[in-house]
C-alpha cells in the first residue's frame, strides 16, 4: 500500500497547477443556472481551453484523440481542477464521460473521426436518451421503437430525464430494434441529431426550480443507419461497456468539493457561535471522517482499476451508495449551521445544494438498485423474483 505519488505524477500535477493558475483568472463570470445558452457557451469555452492546453479527453485512449492518461493522472486532474475552483465538466458531461468513450470503444473509424474531435474541442454537446417514463431503473424495458426504412431507422417514442437536451447537438439514443427478442437483446445504440424533424424537447422543472433535464418526444424521426454504433440489437452490451466508467470517477471532484464545503461550514459555525452546540460540532466531526474515508475509497478504487487494466470494478456501486447519502447528510448539517430561518432563504449559500443533493440517491441508479447490484454481484446473493 503506497499513497505517495510518483515523480512523474507529481510533475504532471505541478504542470497542471501552473496552467490552472494562469488560465482561471481570465474566465468570464459563471452564467445564471437558468441561462442555458450562457451555460453552453461557458462550458464549451472551458472545454476549448482544456483542448488547446492538451488536457481534453485526458483518460481517453490516444488513438481516439485522448491523452491515454492513467487512472491516477485522471484522479489528479479531477482533484486539482476542483481544488482550483475550475469549471465543472457541465454540459460536456455526456459527450466526454459517456457517449465519447462509447464511440471510442465501439465505433468504426469513420464514426470516431466524425464525432470524437468535436466533443474534445467543445464544438458539440451530447445528451443521453436512455430513460423512459416506463423504463427508469429497469432500463432494459425501454419501448422507443426504431424500424428500418431503406437507409434510415424511423424512431418513435419518448424519453425522459434527458440532461442538457435543450442545448445538445446530438443524443446517444437507446431504441428497440427487435420487439420480439428478449428485452436485453433487441436494443440498438444510435446517434441522433437533436435538430432532426420530429424531435420535440420539453424541459422539466426540478424541485430545485431549475430545468436540468427534459422530456423528449420522438415522432418518426429519421436516423441514418450508419449512425448506429455497434451491431444492430447489441446496444445493451455497448451501453454497459461504458456505464461502469461513469461510476468509476464521476464523483472525484465532488468529494474534494464536499471537503471544502465542510471546512466552510465549520468556519461559519465558529463565526456565528453555533460551534458551541456540541451535537452540531460532533456531527461536523463525523462528516470529516466520512469525507476523508470517501476520498481514500476513491483512491482505492482508482488503484484497483489501474491494477485491473483501467476497468473500474464493482467498487463504484459501494462508493455511490455511501457518497450519495453522505452528501445529503452534509447539506442537512449545512441547514443546521445556517439556522432555521436562513435555511429557508434560496439566496443563501448551501440552500440550493441541499435541494440538489436529493437527486443523488436517485440519479445514475437509485440506492435501492445499487444495493441490489452490491448484494447480487459482489456478495453473490440470489436474484430476487
Amino acid at each position, binding site marked *: *500500500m503506497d499513497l505517495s505519488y510518483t515523480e512523474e*505524477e507529481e510533475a504532471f500535477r505541478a504542470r497542471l497547477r501552473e496552467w490552472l493558475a494562469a488560465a482561471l483568472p481570465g474566465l468570464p463570470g459563471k452564467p445564471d443556472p437558468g441561462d442555458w445558452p450562457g451555460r453552453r457557451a461557458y462550458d464549451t469555452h472551458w472545454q476549448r481551453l482544456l483542448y488547446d492546453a492538451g488536457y481534453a479527453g485526458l483518460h481517453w485512449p490516444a488513438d481516439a484523440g485522448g491523452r491515454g492518461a492513467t487512472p491516477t493522472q485522471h484522479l489528479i486532474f479531477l482533484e486539482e481542477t476542483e481544488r482550483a475552483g475550475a469549471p465543472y465538466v457541465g454540459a460536456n458531461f455526456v459527450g466526454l464521460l459517456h457517449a465519447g468513450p462509447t464511440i471510442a470503444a465501439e465505433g468504426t473509424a469513420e464514426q470516431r473521426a466524425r464525432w470524437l474531435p468535436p466533443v474534445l474541442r467543445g464544438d458539440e454537446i451530447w445528451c443521453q436518451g436512455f430513460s423512459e417514463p416506463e423504463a427508469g431503473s429497469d432500463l432494459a424495458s425501454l419501448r422507443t421503437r426504431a424500424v428500418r426504412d431503406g437507409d434510415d431507422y424511423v424512431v418513435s417514442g419518448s424519453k425522459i430525464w434527458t440532461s442538457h437536451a435543450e442545448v445538445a447537438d446530438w443524443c446517444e439514443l437507446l431504441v428497440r430494434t427487435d420487439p420480439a427478442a428478449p428485452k436485453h437483446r433487441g436494443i440498438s445504440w444510435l446517434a441522433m441529431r437533436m435538430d432532426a424533424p420530429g424531435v420535440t424537447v420539453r424541459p422539466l422543472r426540478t424541485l430545485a426550480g431549475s430545468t436540468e433535464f427534459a422530456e423528449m418526444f420522438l415522432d418518426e424521426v429519421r436516423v441514418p443507419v450508419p449512425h448506429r454504433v455497434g451491431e444492430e440489437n447489441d446496444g445493451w452490451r455497448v451501453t454497459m461497456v461504458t456505464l461502469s466508467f461513469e461510476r468509476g470517477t464521476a464523483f472525484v471532484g465532488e468529494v474534494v468539493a464536499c471537503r471544502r464545503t465542510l471546512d466552510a461550514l465549520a468556519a461559519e459555525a465558529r463565526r456565528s457561535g453555533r460551534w458551541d452546540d456540541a451535537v452540531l460540532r460532533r456531527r461536523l466531526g463525523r462528516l470529516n471522517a466520512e469525507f476523508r474515508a470517501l476520498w481514500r*475509497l476513491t483512491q482505492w478504487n482508482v488503484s484497483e482499476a489501474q491494477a485491473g487494466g483501467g476497468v473500474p470494478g464493482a467498487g463504484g456501486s459501494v462508493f455511490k451508495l455511501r457518497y450519495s447519502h453522505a452528501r445529503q447528510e452534509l447539506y442537512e448539517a449545512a441547514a443546521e449551521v445556517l439556522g432555521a430561518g436562513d435555511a429557508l432563504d434560496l439566496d443563501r449559500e448551501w440552500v440550493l445544494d441541499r435541494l440538489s443533493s436529493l437527486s443523488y440517491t436517485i440519479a445514475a441508479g437509485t440506492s435501492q438498485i445499487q444495493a441490489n447490484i452490491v448484494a447480487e454481484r459482489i456478495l*453473490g446473493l440470489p436474484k*430476487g423474483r
Partner: protein
Amino acid sequence: MDFQLSDDQRALGAGIRELLAGRFDRDRMRAAHDGGGGVDRALWRELGAAGLFALRLPETAGGVGLGLPESVLLFEEMGRALLPGPLAATQLAAGAVKGAAEGEAVVALAEAGRPVGHLEGTDALLVLDGEAGGAVGRVLSGRALRQVVREAEPMRSLDPGTPLWRVPDLAGYEGEPLPDGARPRHEGALLAAAEQLGSAGRSLEAAVQHAREREQFAAPIGSFQAVKHLCAGMLVRAETARTAVYAAAVTGDPMEIAGAKLLADEAAVGNARDCLQVHGGMGFTWEADVHLHLKRAWLRAGQWLTAADAEEALAADLG
C-alpha cells in the same frame, strides 16, 4: 500511487489467517468464551513466536521490523477470529515490557475511569493518561501492579471473552515511561480499529452465508430485497472502514486514525447488529456467534478513542 496490498502484505494476512484457523478454530473460540474468557497463555506464546507482538520492533532489537500497515493486517485477522486478550496493548508494550515481544508477557490496558480487561494474571499495565489529544503512556508493573490488583473489584463482564475489573484511580501509581516517540493512544486506536474491521468482515460473511442457506416462503431469504439491502449496507460499511483504516496505517496521521476508529467502530457494531437481524431468532441465542462479535465490538468502541472523543478531534481539525 498504488493503494493496494502488496504481494507480501497479502501473504502476511493469509499466513496469520491460516495460523489462527489451525490454533484457534471455532471450537476453541467457543470454549474460550464459554469458559469465562481470559488469555490462553500457550496460544499467546505461539503468537509471540510467530512474531506478532514484535512485528514493529526493529530487527536490531530482535523484532520483525515491519510497520503499521502490516500490523493492521494482522490485527484485522485476529479481530475476525475473535481472539481474546489485550492484543494491541501488548504489541505497543513490546520493547518496554520484558517478555511482551516474545508472547511470554501479557500487558493489559488501563484508561482513566474505564474498567480494565484481563487484569488477573497480567504481567504489566499499559496506562493511558490524559485526554484524547494527549499521547502519554506509562507502564505499571511489580509492586504497583500488585497493589492495583489487590484493590480491584471484578465486574460481571458483558463480553464473555473479556473479564473486567474496576480499578482505583491510577494517577498516583508510579510507572515506567514508554520509549520516546511512542504514540500509544493513536496506535492503539488504529490497531483496535483493525480488529473492528476484521469483526465487521466476519459478521458480513456470516450474514451472507445464512441468507443464502436459510429458506422461508420457499426461497432463500437472501433473494428478498429487505435482506439483500441489510447485507449490502454491511459491505458498504466494512469497505468504507477498510479504506479509512488502511490509509491511516499508511499515513499514521492522527486525524485519519481518529476517522478510522470512528468508522471501524461503526462498522463492527452495525454489522454485528445487522448480522443478528439477518439470523432472526437464531441470532438471539447464545449458540450463534454473532452476539460475541457485538459484545467485543462494544468493548473496543469504548477503548483507546471513543466516538465522542474522535468526533471532537475531527471537528477541531475543520475550518
